[in-house]
Structure formats: C-alpha cells, structure tokens
C-alpha cells in the first residue's frame, strides 16, 4: 500500500491512471444510462426532475472528457511512452506521481458534489454542476446559478488542469530528451508521436481555459463583470475562450487514439504503417489547424458573415489531414496478413465509426447547415461518433493490445469479441438514430419530449443501444477482472509487435530494460529491408541498476489543492490558506529531498 502511495514508477502510475479513469468511466456511463432511461418514453420515463437531469448530463460530459478519456490516454502515455522510446522512466518521475494524485483528487472533488448537498443546506443530488460541460454564460453567473454547483465545476476543472499541464511538460521532455540512442524523431513509434503532439496541445490549450475559469471565478466570488452584461461584460467572450481551448481539446482526446490505432494496424497486418511520415505530419497539421477553428461552435451566436465563412473554411480544411490519416490506415491494412484479434477489430471499428463522425462534422462545418443542427441531437450524434466511436474504440484497441504488457496476462479473445460486437451494435443503435431525432428538431439537453415531436421511436432505439453498450462494458469488466486470477504467462511479444515495449518481459521489470537498446530502424524488432531485427536484450542487467525510491511529497503537495478548493467553495479563507501552506511546504520538501535516478 505504502509503495503505491509513494510510487514514482511510470508503470505503476500508469496502472493507477488506468483503474481510476476506468472507475470514472463507469460512473460517467451510469449517468448516461440514467439519462437514456429518462428519455426512453415521452414525458420522462424515470421521473427525473429537470434540475437533476441538468446535473446528470453536465457531470456525464465533464466526467467523460476530463476524468475518463483524457486519463485513460494518460494511462497509456505513462505505461508505454518510456518503454517505446527505450527509457527507464519519464523525465520527472515525482512530477508524474503528482499529476496522478492531482487528477484523482480533482475527480473526487468534482464527484463529491453529488453527495455534498446537505453541507450546503440542500438535498443530495442538488449541488452538482449543472450548466453543461462547456458551462456557458449566463447559466454560470451567480445571478442565475446562486448555489455551489458551478463552483464545484470551475474549481474542479482548475485542479484537473494542473494535473494535465504538469503531465504535459513531463511528457514533452520525456519524449524529446529521454530517447534511447538511435531513436531519432522520425523513428519514434506513431503512438509516441501522437502523444507528443497531444501534449503540445495540452500545454497551449489549458492555460486558455484556466484564464476563462479564473475570470468566471472572479465573477462569482468577487463580483466582477467579465461575463455579466449588466456591468458591460460579454457572455460571448466565455464562448470564445472556452472553445479556443475546447477545439484543441477534442484533438487532445482523439490524437492518442489515432496513435494507438497506428500501432495496432501494422502489428496485426504484419506491414509497416503506410506512409509513416505522412501520419506524423498530418498529426502536426491537425494540431495547428485545430487552433483555428474554434468558432465553428459559435455559428449561432451571430459572428457575422465574414467570421462564419472563415471558420467554416478552416473547419473544412481540417477534414483533409484527418482524411489523409484514414487513407493511411486503410493503406496499412491493404494487402496485409490480417489477424482479426479483438484489438484489430476495435481499430477497424474506430476507422469506420470515425468516418461517420467526421462526415457529420463536415456537415456542420458549414454555417447555414449548422444552424439547423446546432444544439440538437444531431450534434450529440456527432460527438458520440467521434468520442465513443473514435476515442473509446481506439482506447479499447489499446487495452486489448497492451494489457498483456501491462499485467503479464492476456485478455480473453472470445470475451473480447463479444465485447466488440455488443459495443458496435450498441453504439450504432444508440447514436445513429440521434442524427434523425436531431434533424427532426429534438434539442439536446432536454429532460422530456412530447410524443407529438415524432422522435419517440428514435429515442427508444437510442436507449436500447445505450443499455447494450452498458452490457458490453460489463463483459469487458469481467474480462479485465478475470485476468487477475490467471497466472502471469504472457510472452514478451504476444502479437509480434515491432516496437521496443515488446522487447522486454510482460510485465516489465522496474528498470524496464536490462540494457538500454540502440535503435537502428523504425521497427526495431522487425526485419526490414536494411536492418536485421534487434538482438534480444540480456535476461539480467550486466550491472546493478539504480531505481529511485518513492516519495511522499507528490501526494502531500497534491492534497493541498482540493483543500484550497474546499476553502474557496465554502468561503472559509483560513482553509484556503491552509491548503496553500500544504502546497508550499510540499514543494520545498520535494525540491530539497534527495532523489536520484
């Protein structure tokens, strides 16, 4: 137990990220199921009140984006990046632990809002965030949201932002600076590349939302009018700041999954990734363009014809590098010796579903058609095809692919196939009809609808689909859990992968590599035209390898942050100061603690 609290081993931190994020994924999924049950019938199938419904969809979105998908990607960054680049750990192991603890505590803080009602003299289920995952003004102003709901949200997101930023710096430096000899930039595995790009987006996008949240905090706590029209402020400024972060954020969510798919497809088609450099550069282009499209979320706010045209244009442009990647993946499969493992199925499912999501995206890239679609279920369909059909299927592909490396145990392929098909049927049943209910005029975020709207059938299909996804997820949970009782038996390289993580035992020893390998090609473990496969590493380290001990300070420093947030939430300044003191003392002890690699 103590060793887990103080661990600085990237592999353990990766597992902690995985289980924590997976737990939040289940919570977010439960919220979705309640939402769908409520919408199963006109006029409300479950009798959920409008207030509760607002909290459910807000927490669902916030949880899935910040507590499930981002940290599930982070689980793979943590576990895999040092292995893929041939390093013993990340550049700053304690900072890495700090990121995890901040993420965990921030997630708990946000979710505590579900039960914190009585502390504020309110019922349970009444003080959770309720203004949507993008928290539009005026919904979030003190005037229209006097309770602590939005405070939980804005403080929670600030905490989580710190975790993401710290991890961003850490992984950028790790990837740039900790590569094994010969691991040139253009030999990095595609997942590592997409991670690097993602982290650049993180460190540039998160400051923007931090500023937005800080301004909102000033409005709510100190009575400024940054977003309050009565004082001259402009609610639209919030939208600009949020989406300037928000659109890069969607690429933060998808690029890691694209990286995973670019690992899985070559391995299971026994072919190098088709157009490796194109995949890399299109990722870079996506990241750049991702910064220039934010206002496509704001067409209906009346930006004027010029801004609308520009943002429509940039948005359509970004579909090009995205499409390029899709052709690369298909080109990788083309003519390969394909093995239909669960991992490959999920990767192929990713491509198919992501295409549907991309197409609906392009359909609302054009401002006039977006005006028909925005704030309807059509957008809900889009985001679920890209985030579930894209990110989550990609992450599942990664889980089946890397689980043996992470735990030394193989997931069951037959259960995996049940999981895959149930997920595919469930997600299409859940999300495809939303295109129609949306176009027929069903607004998103509505807690009831009338039978006269003619969307009852579509909603029922969506609800059935959602519960199928739930069932599929239970199958997956069972698949994960049952591996715990299996002996550790996975070979080094169960799938015949080409990258360095497959050169070492499953699970890897603490020091990862007995000897740091020297890399000569993009696919070190494969025979290529010019290079023989890397020779196996020695079984035992030739000389003892020093592994750094753990540290308490990342955890202790991290606890200061939710303490500060609780103080702010309850307007008790001494608690804020106590939290700050913990952070400061933690940083000092951390900086001057002897810690060597």
């Amino acid at each position, binding site marked *: 137990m103590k060793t887990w609290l103080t661990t600085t081993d990237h592999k353990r931190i990766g597992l902690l990220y995985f289980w924590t994020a997976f737990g939040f994924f289940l919570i977010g999924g439960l919220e979705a199921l309640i939402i769908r049950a409520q919408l199963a019938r006109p006029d409300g199938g479950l009798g959920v009140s409008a207030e509760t419904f607002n909290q459910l969809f807000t927490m669902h979105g916030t949880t899935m984006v910040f507590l499930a998908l981002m940290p599930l990607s982070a689980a793979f960054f943590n576990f895999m990046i040092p292995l893929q680049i041939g390093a013993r*750990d*990340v*550049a*700053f*192991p304690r900072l890495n632990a700090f990121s995890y603890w901040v993420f965990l505590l921030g997630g708990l803080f946000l979710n505590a809002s579900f039960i914190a009602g009585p502390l504020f003299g309110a019922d349970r289920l009444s003080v959770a965030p309720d203004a949507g995952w993008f928290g539009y003004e005026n919904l979030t102003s003190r005037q229209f949201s006097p309770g602590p709901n939005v405070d939980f949200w804005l403080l929670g997101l600030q905490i989580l932002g710190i975790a993401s*930023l710290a991890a*961003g*710096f*850490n992984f*950028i*430096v*790790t990837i*740039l*600076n*900790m*590569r094994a*000899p*010969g*691991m*040139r930039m253009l030999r990095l595995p595609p997942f590592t590349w997409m991670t690097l790009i993602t982290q650049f987006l993180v*460190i*540039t*996008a*998160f*400051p*923007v939302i*931090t*500023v*937005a949240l*800080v*301004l909102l905090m*000033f409005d709510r706590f*100190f*009575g*400024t*009018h*940054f977003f309050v029209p009565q*004082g*001259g*402020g*402009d609610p639209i*400024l919030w939208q600009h*700041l949020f989406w*300037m972060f928000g659109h890069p954020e969607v690429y933060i969510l998808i690029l890691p999954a694209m990286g995973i798919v670019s690992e899985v497809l070559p391995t299971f088609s026994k072919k190098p990734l088709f157009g490796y450099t194109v995949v890399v550069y299109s990722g870079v282009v996506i990241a750049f363009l991702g910064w220039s499209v934010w206002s496509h979320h704001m067409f209906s706010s009346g930006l004027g014809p010029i801004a609308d045209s520009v943002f429509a244009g940039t948005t359509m442009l970004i579909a090009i590098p995205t499409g390029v990647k899709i052709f690369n993946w298909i080109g990788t499969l083309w003519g390969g010796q394909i093995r239909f493992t669960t991992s490959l199925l999920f990767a192929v499912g990713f491509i198919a579903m992501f295409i549907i999501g991309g197409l609906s995206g392009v359909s609302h890239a054009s401002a006039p058609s977006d005006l028909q679609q925005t704030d309807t279920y059509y957008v809900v369909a889009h985001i679920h095809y890209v985030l579930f059909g894209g990110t989550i299927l990609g992450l599942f592909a990664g889980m089946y692919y890397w689980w043996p490396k992470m735990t030394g145990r193989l997931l069951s392929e037959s259960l995996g196939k049940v999981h895959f098909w149930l997920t595919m049927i469930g997600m299409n049943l859940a999300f495809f009809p939303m295109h129609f209910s949306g176009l027929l005029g069903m607004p998103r975020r509505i807690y009831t609808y009338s039978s006269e709207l003619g969307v009852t059938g579509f909603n029922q299909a969506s609800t059935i689909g959602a519960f199928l996804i739930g069932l599929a997820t239970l199958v997956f949970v069972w698949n994960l859990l049952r591996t715990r009782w299996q002996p550790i038996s996975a070979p080094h390289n169960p799938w015949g992968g080409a990258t360095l993580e497959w050169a070492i035992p499953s699970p890897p020893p603490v020091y990862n590599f007995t000897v740091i390998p020297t890399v000569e090609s993009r696919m070190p473990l494969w025979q290529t035209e010019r290079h023989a496969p890397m020779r196996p590493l020695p079984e035992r380290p030739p000389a003892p390898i020093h592994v*750094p001990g753990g540290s308490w300070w990342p955890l202790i420093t991290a606890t200061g942050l939710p303490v500060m947030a609780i103080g702010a939430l309850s307007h008790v300044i001494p608690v804020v100061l106590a939290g700050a003191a913990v952070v400061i003392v933690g940083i*000092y002890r951390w900086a001057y603690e*002897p*810690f*060597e*690699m």
Partner: protein
Amino acid sequence: MTHGSAHAHEAGAGAHRTSMGLDSRKMAFWAFIGSECLLFGSLISTYLVYKGRSLTGPFPHEILNIPFTSFSTFDLLMSSLAMVLALAAVQRGDMKQGKLWLLVTALLGLVFLAGQFWEFSHFVREGLGLTTNLFGSTFYVLTGTHGAHVTVGVIWLLTLWVQALRGKLGPANAMTVEITGLYWHFVDVVWIVIFTVVYLIQ
C-alpha cells in the same frame, strides 16, 4: 544529437545523457514558459477586448501614472541585469558576487512589488476597485497575475540566496540559477508587454 551535456542535479533525468543535449529541467522550463505565454496572452486579449467598454469611470487615462510605472519598469529591467550578473558569478564559482547579485535581484523585485502595492492602493483611493468597471477588473486581474509571478520569483530568488548563504549553492547548481533566471527574464518581458499595452497605448 545523441551526445548531451551531463549536468548532475537532483531532478533526475538530467543526470544522464539527454537526446537533445539540453538539460531536461531547462527544457521543461521552456515548455512551461510557452504555456505561460498563452496564459498571459489570454489575459491580455481579455484586457484588449474590453478596452474602452467600461460603463463608468475611472477610465485609464484618468488614473494611470506613466512616469511612476516607467520607474517600476526600469527597476524590473535592472533586476534582469542583476540576474544576469548573478548567474555569471555562480557559473564562475564566485559565490560572493553570486550571493550579492541574487539578493539585489530579489530586492529589485521587491521594489517592483512595493510599487505595485502603492499603485493599487492609490487607484482604490481614486475610486477604481476590482469591481468598479471592466477596466478595473481586467487591469487588476492582469497586473495582479503578473505581480503574483513576481512574488513567486522573489521567493525563489530568496530561497537560492539563503541556500547560497548556507554554502549549499555552488557552480554545480548553476543550472538551477539559470532556470530561475529564465523565469525571471520571462516575467520581465511579460511586464514590458503589459506596460506597453496597458500604459503606453491608451
């Protein structure tokens, strides 16, 4: 590309060869500075968006005192000079000078903060509070965020100074001082931008 410097320090990674030949902590700091650019960029944009949109006074031209702030700006610039001297001294191993210049840098930072404190309280007496109008809100949040950065810098410099007094800072830690310097110069540059945008271009 694969041969790097081998600075020994406690943060870990840098003790080994690094792929880019750049100390890992320094690289992390550059990334951090990049990130901070967007933080200040967002705040400055907010200031600019709301420029001239205050519903009530006091308005910038009624209250901003350019000569006084020019002095503060000069003071901060001089602190950057002192920082350069401190780093050079530490790198040479001349800890006597190193100590002196670290202290001077911190003190100049403190003078800046005192100036900001005086300026803020003066403005409040003139009727410009945080919530008075958009100018007040954007002005205090922007310059206050910068002031908070200066405060962190001063504490950091004083920490190094105390370490130096206790004989725990030497040429082996030159990288630590160099990173502190990076931060300090960055905060200085941000101030130049703020001074230009807020004070000079009204």
